[in-house]
């Protein structure tokens, strides 16, 4: 019985660890500030929402078919690609952003978009496409390949099988991956600060937190924090 209570103790510590800061910050939240800074907050929300939506759709467009190919087809170099599938997921966003920064700053065609809102989308894409690919690969791997075989045997071509069988089967997986990706894109900070910088015209919600904190405006930062917490809670429920 003694050691069982130890197990529950760990849960209690964990709960306090996350809930205490949240509750404390809720007390500190100065709602009157929302009205003062309404324009500013609204602009950050708008920028976060539009860039995250764009980058999620682009990453789905590239990631879903790629994941399907990786899950279903054999091709030269497949095992190499599969081994390094997780690398972009575990490389920290700051590092990932820096790699793109080097490429962009030294390439004429791309250098113009650095430190503009387009750079935000590139930063989010870099982080989110890897996540979509990883999640969708798992989704397709979990669909028994026999579903494909049956459709082939009934006269459907590989492309028809993808559209008529695997996409509908993966529907729930695609939706939940998209939600997760969107949330990650909306909260992206490391790659964004590197590629788009921290200035007023690229002020997404996470960047605005950083900017407010850098001028010690904690209650201003908290408004953006709670918008992001709200998005997080909405995403998981």
């Amino acid at each position: 019985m003694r050691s069982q209570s130890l197990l529950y103790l760990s849960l209690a510590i964990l709960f306090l660890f996350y809930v205490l800061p949240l509750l404390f910050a809720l007390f500190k939240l100065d709602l009157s500030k929302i009205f003062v800074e309404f324009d500013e907050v609204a602009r950050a929300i708008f920028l976060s929402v539009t860039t995250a939506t764009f980058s999620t759709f682009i990453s789905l467009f590239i990631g879903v078919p790629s994941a399907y190919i990786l899950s279903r087809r054999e091709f030269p170099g497949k095992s190499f690609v599969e081994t390094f599938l997780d690398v972009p997921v575990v490389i920290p966003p700051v590092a990932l952003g820096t790699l793109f920064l080097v490429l962009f700053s030294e390439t004429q065609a791309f250098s113009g978009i650095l430190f503009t809102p387009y750079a935000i989308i590139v930063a989010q894409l870099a982080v989110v496409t890897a996540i979509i690919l990883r999640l969708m690969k798992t989704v397709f791997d979990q669909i028994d390949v026999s579903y494909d075989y049956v459709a082939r045997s009934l006269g459907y071509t590989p492309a028809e099988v993808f559209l008529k069988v695997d996409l509908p089967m993966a529907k729930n997986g695609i939706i939940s991956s998209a939600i997760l990706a969107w949330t990650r894109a909306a909260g992206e900070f490391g790659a964004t600060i590197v590629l788009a910088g921290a200035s007023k015209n690229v002020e997404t919600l996470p960047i605005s937190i950083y900017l407010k904190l850098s001028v010690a405006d904690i209650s201003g930062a908290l408004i953006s924090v709670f918008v992001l917490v709200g998005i997080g809670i909405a995403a998981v429920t």
Partner: protein
Amino acid sequence: MLKLEKISARKGKFEIRDVSFQVEEGEVLAVIGPSGSGKTTLIETIVGVVRPISGRIFLKGKDVTNLPPEKRKIAYVPQNLCVYPFMSVEENIRFGGRNISFEEVRRIARMLRIEHLLDREAKSLSGGEQQRVAIARALAANPEVIALDEAFRGLDISTKEGVLSEFKEVQENERLSVILVTHDFEEAYALADKICVMNEGRILQLGDKEDVFFNPKNEFVAEFLGYSNVFEGYANGNVIETDLGIIKTFEQHTGKVKVYVHPRDVMVVREGKPLRRGIEENIFEGVLKEIIEKPNSSLILFDVNGVTIKAELPNYVVERLRLKEFLNKKPVRISLKTGRIIVISK
């Protein structure tokens, strides 16, 4: 109809080697064997999702070895059935036959007794209903051959016989050509015309079902089909010396052999009753050691000269002969059906 010529293929750790056979129109070929014998790889090669390493596959005389599955007209029903959960039953059937009329959908559904399910969502079906839908979907494609992989697995014993006899009826009425893979030899016997026994990727015996079941040609097939009385011996003409005693056979053999007798071919000789012709040979005296009861028949274990012999007898025979009273008591005379004794040279 469907003809395999020395097909070798491999998928993961499973492989098949030099598999050749033929399925005629309206015929059912059952491939049986233990798990891991390459049965699923074989059927996936026939369907076309596994490419053979060597050999040829012909369908109606045409070489289809390099055709993709969608051009073969071989409808596949895999082990997990793969009824599409996001479609209704009707949509599943329609998926099989693209431009099929509603009357045709109903006809197929009626044949498989799922007419009342047409509007149901496929994911709400029971296992047995899914089996019917998967077969209906395959029929709707109007294929040359239907390839079934353990499609009747997991049914209750009491519903299984019904499903099998219904499928056999549909198969005979529609003159379907079927290749069926299963580990259940009773299912194979109920459905098939020809049977092919596989182990470790190779065909061990292929022939009419009666021939395979009652005349196994090698040790593996005999043991797989339940010939569980095995005696090693030395044959000389139609006499074989074994641990059990002298066993007489109709055919001639010489040298070291293994003798196989199925429990259903072991009989108990009634005291005081004249022997019927054909069983006056191969009579042994033994002690009844154990009775393992099953609802319809019992397995009886005898000890003859220190060797255990198993007999399977219908329960009414066990009752009529009052065998329970003989347990570990006075000896019983048992006889082996001479015509059913299998002798395999070593």
